[in-house]
């Protein structure tokens, strides 16, 4: 089979297709988006009828994938790390139901928060749900592990979590493909009650999951992904997890590391290998891209054993992603740097695009809110979060998907009036609707802006589940028609928009204002494509 130059995300997608998935489910989120986009653009996927359109959120994606697995087919569900919080209910319980067709959950973590609000480590979630975790160190391993992961998933009837981080997701390398497999036949579970988590059944299923732990650990030895690499100098033993292994290797020419190494890319970590390293070496260093999960376990609360070096003792910083230099410093190797960044180099933060509709929305909102005291705008996750920066300085919160409406409601409950919520169209259908129902039920005095640009903008312009549905949804959950307005966020409509906002802010109930204009990026792309096809 041919070798392809693929992003880590794309290697995962290609392997899922070659492993015979019947569908992929996801909500866009950096750095996971390109997995699903690859499937959406793949000829192979089209020919084999692989379903791939975007889900409304990560929870619906996870549940739909579980349904596809129930029907005997292989499937993958993808999300960014914080998306796994949204999907957590379904995710954790899928460990108890187990699966029928192979199911891989991909969580793409973002240490150093390149495009995220935290750097939580999804390996914790895998441990929490008691399921196997795969953490590929490179693009080829990502490809190979997806194929293996589906076999593993079906062998033990368990969902498998694949955890990647930004650098693997968004880095390209050559990947060797394997022969594609056919899709599974449709087949419901042999046990018709496998997925019925009534307490009596759930207790049995949970015992089965607990009993499988030994098998999971054994797989982590026999699969060959975890490796014990001998070394002559036993003064130190190194545990290198996932891509941390690459940063370790980068520091030694021809990969001649003098110390014994335990390369970990599959969890649960086999105790047998851990014991060998610990017994053989004087000190242990743990390199983890993320939280010091295994460092902490190995060290123990009392830290009475051998010296364990890592994030907890300051050998490596507690936060942020690793790189070759951090590992060099940890190993007392030279850390050579070029010249310092000259003082004249100014920061260049991301900003809203020229012509973006959000700019006009914020200009109007700001003009009205300038007549009130500060601190009233609860925002959400999307391009419009950039309204926090100069020159807008327009928002006071950004916490999680959907938290704009609910936080505005809570603040209004506390007496803040007017309280304002700003949420994007895609974020609204992702997690805003339930909050709106709460607000309508209490007739909370809040004004909600649903910024509708017909797309999921920040992740590159994916289809939004909200398109052409927002008014119907709002009216359907009980927003009063006289307090539901669609406005055009344009300079020449500014005065009119300001007037309407003024009126609605003073209304003591739920108002929804929908500034609606297409994303400038998707508009430009549409025009380019139109020109090309002429």
């Amino acid at each position, binding site marked *: 089979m041919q070798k392809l130059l693929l992003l880590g995300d794309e290697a995962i997608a290609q392997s899922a297709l070659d492993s015979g998935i019947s569908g992929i489910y996801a909500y866009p989120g950096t750095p996971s988006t390109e997995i699903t986009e690859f499937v959406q653009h793949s000829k192979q996927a089209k020919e084999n009828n692989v379903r791939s359109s975007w889900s409304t959120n990560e929870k619906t994606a996870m549940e739909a994938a579980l349904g596809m697995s129930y029907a005997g087919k292989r499937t993958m569900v993808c999300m960014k790390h914080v998306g796994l919080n949204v999907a957590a209910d379904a995710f954790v319980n899928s460990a108890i139901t187990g699966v029928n067709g192979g199911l891989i959950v991909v969580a793409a973590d973002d240490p150093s928060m390149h495009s995220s609000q935290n750097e939580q480590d999804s390996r914790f979630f895998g441990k929490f749900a008691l399921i196997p975790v795969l953490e590929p160190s490179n693009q080829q391993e990502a490809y190979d592990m997806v194929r293996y992961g589906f076999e593993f998933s079906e062998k033990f009837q368990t969902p498998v979590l694949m955890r990647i981080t930004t650098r693997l997701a968004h880095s390209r390398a050559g990947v060797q493909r394997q022969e594609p497999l056919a899709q599974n036949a449709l087949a419901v579970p042999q046990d018709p009650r496998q997925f019925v988590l009534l307490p009596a059944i759930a207790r049995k299923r949970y015992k089965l999951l607990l009993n499988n732990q030994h098998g999971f650990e054994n797989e982590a030895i026999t699969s060959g992904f975890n490796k014990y690499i001998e070394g002559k100098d036993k003064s130190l033993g190194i545990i290198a997890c996932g891509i941390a292994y690459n940063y370790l290797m*980068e520091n030694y020419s021809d990969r001649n590391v003098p110390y014994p190494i335990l390369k970990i890319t599959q969890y649960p970590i086999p105790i047998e290998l851990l014991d060998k390293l610990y017994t053989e070496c004087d000190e242990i260093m743990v390199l983890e891209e993320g939280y010091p999960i295994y460092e902490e376990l190995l060290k123990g609360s009392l830290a009475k054993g051998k010296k364990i070096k890592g994030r907890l003792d300051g050998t490596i910083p507690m936060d942020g992603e690793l*790189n070759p230099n951090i590992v060099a410093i940890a190993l007392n190797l030279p850390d050579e740097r070029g010249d310092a960044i000259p003082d004249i180099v100014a920061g260049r933060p991301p900003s809203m*695009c020229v012509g973006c509709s959000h700019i006009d929305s914020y200009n109007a909102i700001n003009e009205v809110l300038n007549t009130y005291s500060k601190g009233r705008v609860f925002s959400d996750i999307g391009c419009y979060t950039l309204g926090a920066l100069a020159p807008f300085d327009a928002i006071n919160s950004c916490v999680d998907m959907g938290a704009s409406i609910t936080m505005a409601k809570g603040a209004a409950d506390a007496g803040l009036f007017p309280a304002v919520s700003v949420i994007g169209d895609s974020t609204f259908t992702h997690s805003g609707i339930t909050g709106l129902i709460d607000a309508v039920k209490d007739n909370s005095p809040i004004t909600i802006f649903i910024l509708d640009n017909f797309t999921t903008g920040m992740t590159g312009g994916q289809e939004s589940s909200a398109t052409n549905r927002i008014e119907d949804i709002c009216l359907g959950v009980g927003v009063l028609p006289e307090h539901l307005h669609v406005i055009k966020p344009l300079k020449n409509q500014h005065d009119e928009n300001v007037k309407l906002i003024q009126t609605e802010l003073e209304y003591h109930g739920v108002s929804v204002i929908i500034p609606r204009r297409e994303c400038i990026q998707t508009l430009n792309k549409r025009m380019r494509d139109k020109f090309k096809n002429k």
Partner: protein
Amino acid sequence: MKIDIILAGVGGQGILSIAATIGYAAIEMGLFLKQSEVHGMSQRGGDVQSHLRLSDKEIASDLIPFGKADLIISVEPMESLRYLPMLSKDGWLITNTTPFININNYPDVDILMSKISSLKQFVALDADSMAKDLGAARSANMVILGAATPHIKIGYEKFENAIRNIFKNKGEEVIAVNLAALKAGKDYTEQNS
């Protein structure tokens, strides 16, 4: 053989086309390659970088270590300086001199240029004007790549092949314009070093 390149610019300036062209040439040479890109929030008008690593041996890290980059190729002058800590002592900096100003506190351009000129090894060229003169205003990035080619240990014809292939769906005219841009950059470096 090993060459580590930092590509720098502002979101939307086309550094990924440069990466794709070098990448194509490297694959044709049978080299190993790793290319780390920036996606997501930072793409919106912020500073962007790509780490491009080529080698005849398997490459370990997706990131180039500090102080180890052989080249910084930048389509924007201030952005070229942001990555100086990555550049090795013997490294070259290749940069466009046309500033992209989307912030209020952009530094004085003369001070910026004097800072670039104080470096040991650099090529600084006005790629935007050169591209415009060729009737290829959108190919400034290919002028910059051309200026870098004498410092990348890959035969020049491999870059030409890469351009022919990458732009093959866009027609002969687009290919010709980009080849001319590439050559203009190459000639500049050869005549000024």
